[in-house]
């Protein structure tokens, strides 16, 4: 039963890849994509419930391995796939009606969106670090096709930059994985098991420290390229701004988290031998990302790039939280992963409707969104406030937890640094988005037909509702899942 749920969670999104080749057009493709996401989310939640109340799922010598940490990330990613799948409906219908996307492009979108989602969900459910690498690299390749989908010179350029920088980065992570394998050379298990996370974790205190140290650095630089940690972040703003908006939401809210998941796994392996070594490295890279994200937000004219810099900033916050460590830091990191994923999906999807209406990504040309499309305008406004950490939304709670973790650590002055950077990000980000929402709207905005508009509003309302809920009350099951994951990693 647990195995079935695990397979359903990664296999259901593939429906979106089959339907378009069977003759479906934009409507059918988008419906299959959204339905696949919703089915996967249901399976992921059921899987999480079973894992928390029972044992981790471990099969085929650890090639399939789902513990509470995996289950948490699978549920988060499946939620993003669902929201982005619903957002795909408005995007595909509007672009098809306008004749911007050919039938082939719709097919490619459906296929590679499905592959991208499925590969990430599978990557989160394997205990074999080599297979994890294979699946993460494959998801990079699938998402690069999405970035290039609109085939403008700029989107091809962004896709090239993305694929070449990320592939190089992830290859470095493979070298790190080799050294992790090598550090287990004195552990007497079969060679397969030396790459299997639960086995390595059980023997973490006998791993060879020198090669483990080298391995963690290589892995952090490698997977950190995927996460968008500074200074390896340079592909991220381009890819996020050039991809179709639902794909941007997937990149920012799902792909970055998948990379972070890999880093968390390796961090857990280093603790017994290296102590706080990994924490300190994570703090350095985390603060660098926070700084880069916050500073580049100032005066950023393209609102999709603005959202992308905010993703770099948030990944920095998560890395910092992992660096502080302890129950508080880890709790904050996982909660922040979830709240950022929801908030950023809402922002990219509402930004996507702005692109469809105004045909521009330049924030200064977008005015009067609230009178033109009240739901999207409100979602953009509230989503911005939420992602910046205003109460009563969930991000406030998770960032508050992380700031508390920083004051509880030995270096409590870092907490003030963190707060200062959050304030800079708040001012820079809200200044741009708030002025998009108000004011008088320019002439010549495009209209959307009724159905895509209504379907497009669903993920925005649902996402904001969830964020509000998480800000006021953390459901008992979620709390238990996170606590369970923390216990499994310590």
């Amino acid at each position, binding site marked *: 039963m647990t195995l079935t749920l695990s397979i359903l969670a990664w296999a259901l999104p593939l429906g979106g890849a089959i339907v378009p080749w069977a003759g479906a057009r934009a409507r059918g493709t988008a419906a299959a994509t959204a339905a696949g996401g919703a089915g996967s989310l249901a399976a992921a939640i059921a899987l999480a419930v079973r894992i928390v109340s029972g044992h981790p799922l471990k099969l085929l010598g650890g*090639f399939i391995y789902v513990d509470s940490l995996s289950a948490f990330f699978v549920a988060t990613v499946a939620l993003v796939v669902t929201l982005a799948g619903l957002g795909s409906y408005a995007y595909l219908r509007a672009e098809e009606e306008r004749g911007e996307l050919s039938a082939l492009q719709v097919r490619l979108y459906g296929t590679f969106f499905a592959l991208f989602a499925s590969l990430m969900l599978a990557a989160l459910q394997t205990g*074999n670090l*080599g*297979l994890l*690498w*294979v*699946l993460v*690299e*494959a998801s990079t*390749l699938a998402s*690069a*096709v999405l970035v*290039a989908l609109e*085939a*403008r*010179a*700029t989107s*091809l*350029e*962004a*896709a*090239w*930059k993305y*694929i*070449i920088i990320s*592939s*190089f980065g992830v*290859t*470095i992570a*493979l*070298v790190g994985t*080799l*050294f992790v*394998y*090598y550090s287990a*050379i*004195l552990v007497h298990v079969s*060679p*397969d098991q*030396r*790459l299997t996370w639960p086995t390595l974790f059980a023997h973490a205190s006998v791993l*060879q420290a*020198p*090669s483990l140290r*080298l391995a963690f650095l290589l892995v952090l630089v490698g997977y950190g390229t995927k996460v968008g940690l500074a200074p390896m972040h*340079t592909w*991220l*703003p*381009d890819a996020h*701004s*050039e991809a179709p908006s639902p794909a941007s939401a997937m990149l920012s809210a799902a792909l970055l988290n998948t990379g972070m998941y890999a880093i968390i796994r390796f961090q857990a392996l280093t603790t017994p031998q290296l102590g706080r070594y990994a924490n300190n490295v994570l703090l350095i890279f985390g603060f660098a990302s926070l700084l880069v994200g916050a500073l*580049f937000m100032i005066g950023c004219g393209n609102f999709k*790039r603005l959202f*992308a810099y905010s993703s770099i900033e948030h990944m920095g916050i998560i890395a910092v939280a992992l660096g502080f460590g302890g129950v508080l830091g880890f709790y904050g990191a996982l909660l922040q992963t979830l709240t950022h994923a929801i908030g950023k999906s809402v922002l990219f999807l509402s930004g996507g409707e702005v692109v469809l209406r105004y045909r521009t990504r330049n924030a200064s040309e977008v005015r009067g969104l609230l009178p033109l499309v009240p739901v999207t305008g409100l979602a953009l406004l509230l989503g911005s406030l939420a992602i910046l950490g205003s109460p009563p939304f969930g991000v406030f709670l998770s960032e508050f937890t992380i700031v508390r973790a920083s004051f509880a650590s030995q270096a409590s002055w870092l907490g003030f640094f963190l707060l200062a950077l959050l304030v800079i990000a708040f001012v820079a980000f809200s200044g741009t988005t708030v002025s998009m929402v108000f004011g008088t709207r320019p002439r010549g905005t495009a209209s959307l037909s009724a159905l895509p508009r209504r379907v497009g509003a669903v993920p925005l309302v649902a996402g904001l509702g969830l964020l509000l809920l998480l800000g006021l009350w953390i459901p008992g099951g979620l709390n238990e899942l996170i606590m369970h994951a923390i216990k499994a990693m310590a």
Partner: protein
Amino acid sequence: MTSAYTTLLNLASVLILLFAFACLGSKLFDRYVGYYAIQSVLLSVVAAIVAYDLDAPALWALAVLTLLIKGVGIPVATRRYLLARLSLKRDAAIALGLSTTLIIGAVLTGLAYFAMRPSTLPGRLLDTAAVPLAMAVVLLGGLCMVVRRHTIAQLLGWLIVENGVFLGAITLVATFPFIVEAGIFLDLVAGVLIMLALVSGLAQRLASASADDLRRLNG
């Protein structure tokens, strides 16, 4: 591990490093691809040597796959679908002079030896030079991606990095699970196909697919 085995392994690894240097020192696209092909054939020889030594059927399969895909498939596809179709000959988009590049390459090779010194690598592998050489190949491929601005040169740079990692993988650990090795191969093939499509798309849009023209986005 016999001494003849170690000698052969070291010899092949040194030759692999030399062909990475050859790529760095050349200006003709045709040569880049040719050197990559020879390097890949040498890599399949290394895989075969290790396979013979350990008597591992999975490694024999990898040696054959390397020969067919990296030694023949990728070079032929790159020549036919990019170089011939876009009539590319000379790489003019080099950020640094060739001699400077080669000196930096030499420094990086030294750095690889320094990073892989015995204290980092306890255990049985001290008698082969292949691991530091593999790291040097990784760094040289990275250097190639940085100093060459043409997209095809960057693609080949990544492939050289990948060859370096593969050399490291078969000499350092030898017995990666076959399914993982096969997955790495699959990723490589899919990656090259998508990159080839992107390069030819860029070439159509920009007339020359040099990364020098890729300046519209800055981030």
